[in-house]
């Protein structure tokens, strides 16, 4: 235990990065992809004219937004086994995070779809498109542009929220930091280092967001 802080910082960098590469990043990416697909479905249900369908979506969104993510995670991992459903840490985390993203992103996508003028639907129908095709070729590409900033927020929040998965034994960035910290007793150093790695990941994501916005803005008057 006579490592200098500097040496400890360097020697712990690899475990933390490994946690990010093998845990945090794939967990965030897969949960976000699944969550977005779920969110699109929920948003379309929420926009349905059928009261029952939109009601189900409304209740779903309300539950997801009205309960803490940590509680959702614990219900799935520690709660479900008591009724005979045993799920491993990784799938538990992916399910919890996807369900969560599904609820938040659904509202973003719904608002984005509604922001596309009605005349766009009408022009799509006029040229003979079905509802489904109008949605996929005319409405969603336009909705995508307005939803990039809020969805980027959702994604960046998700990256940080994956640290909660350490509490259900998923080996990711923060759990690696905890383990090194417990071993070396250098809590301040290790947790600040973990914070730094999260921050760098989010900086990269913010840059990606700007690039994506620029690309999607090419057909908009400036």
């Amino acid at each position, binding site marked *: 235990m006579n490592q200098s802080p500097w040496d400890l910082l360097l020697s712990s960098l690899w475990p933390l990065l490994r946690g990010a590469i093998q845990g945090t990043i794939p967990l965030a990416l897969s949960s976000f992809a699944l969550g977005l697909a779920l969110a699109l479905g929920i948003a379309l249900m929420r926009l349905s004219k059928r009261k029952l369908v939109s009601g189900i979506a409304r209740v779903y969104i309300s539950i997801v937004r009205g309960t803490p993510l940590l509680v959702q995670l614990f219900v799935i991992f520690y709660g479900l086994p008591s009724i005979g459903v045993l799920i491993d840490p990784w799938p538990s985390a992916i399910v919890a995070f996807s369900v969560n993203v599904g609820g938040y992103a659904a509202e973003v996508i719904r608002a984005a779809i509604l922001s596309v003028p009605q005349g766009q639907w*009408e022009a799509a129908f*006029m*040229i003979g498109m079905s509802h489904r*095709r109008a949605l996929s*070729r005319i409405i969603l590409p336009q909705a995508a542009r307005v939803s990039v900033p809020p969805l980027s927020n959702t994604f960046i929040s998700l990256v940080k929220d994956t640290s909660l998965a350490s509490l259900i034994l998923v080996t990711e960035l923060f759990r690696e930091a905890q383990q090194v910290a417990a071993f070396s007793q250098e809590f301040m150093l290790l947790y600040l280092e973990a914070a730094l790695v999260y921050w760098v990941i989010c900086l990269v994501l913010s840059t990606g967001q700007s690039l994506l916005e620029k690309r999607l803005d*090419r*057909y908009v008057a400036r």
Partner: protein
Amino acid sequence: MSPADVSGNAGAASALLTVRGLKKSFGTNQVLNSIDLTVDRGRVLVLIGSSGSGKTTILRCLNGLEQADGGTVDVAGEVQLDFATSPSNKERAALRDRSAMVFQHYNLFPHMTVLENVLEGPVIVQRRSRTEATDEALALLDRVGLSDKKDAYPFELSGGQQQRVGIVRALALRPQLLLFDEPTSSLDPELVGDVLRLITELAQEGWSMVIVTHELEFAREVAHEIAFVDGGRIVERGHPSQLLRDPQQERTRQFLHRLLFPF
């Protein structure tokens, strides 16, 4: 492409569109109250009337953007719909495919270039060959003077240019009937002329049209028949010179007077 290519005997005065007893309500508000109309092949019907009179709703029912509650529509004896028996989606699509609409606010797809806007219908929806449809689209853009704008996005165009693209997009669908919903109402005054001239040329080429407009001079020039719509009914119809100069109904007289002498 001229309409003769798609509709056959453009010269003969046979009925292309026959509407009988068309009805439409929004809630308790009856917007269309038994509308009857006929448009012969190669003819132009202009609908005039104050806003809220129902003239736009007539066009929207013909293009399937609104579903009528009652009445029948017949296109060329080939598509017949009775709205009293709530037609299937397939029947409504068949009706919609006979016509193409030009919108007041153009409604071009902002995320597509001019050429992509025009090709979306023929290539993606109608599944025609891309090369053939592109040749046709470029020829149409050329005729409205916009071939050099084919790769521009709508926001880069003036209102008049956007509306000409809107017209080309409609023509590229090869419809039997063109519907114009106040095509110049959102244009700057100095850009109105180009668009009206283009529509007049298309009419002279034999396209069948129903046009909703407030431009009386244009109506006089382009229409074979003018119908005055008020309160969801066709109050009066007739030859342009007769109806505009010597309307028979008091309501028509009032409307024309207000349009000609706004203050």
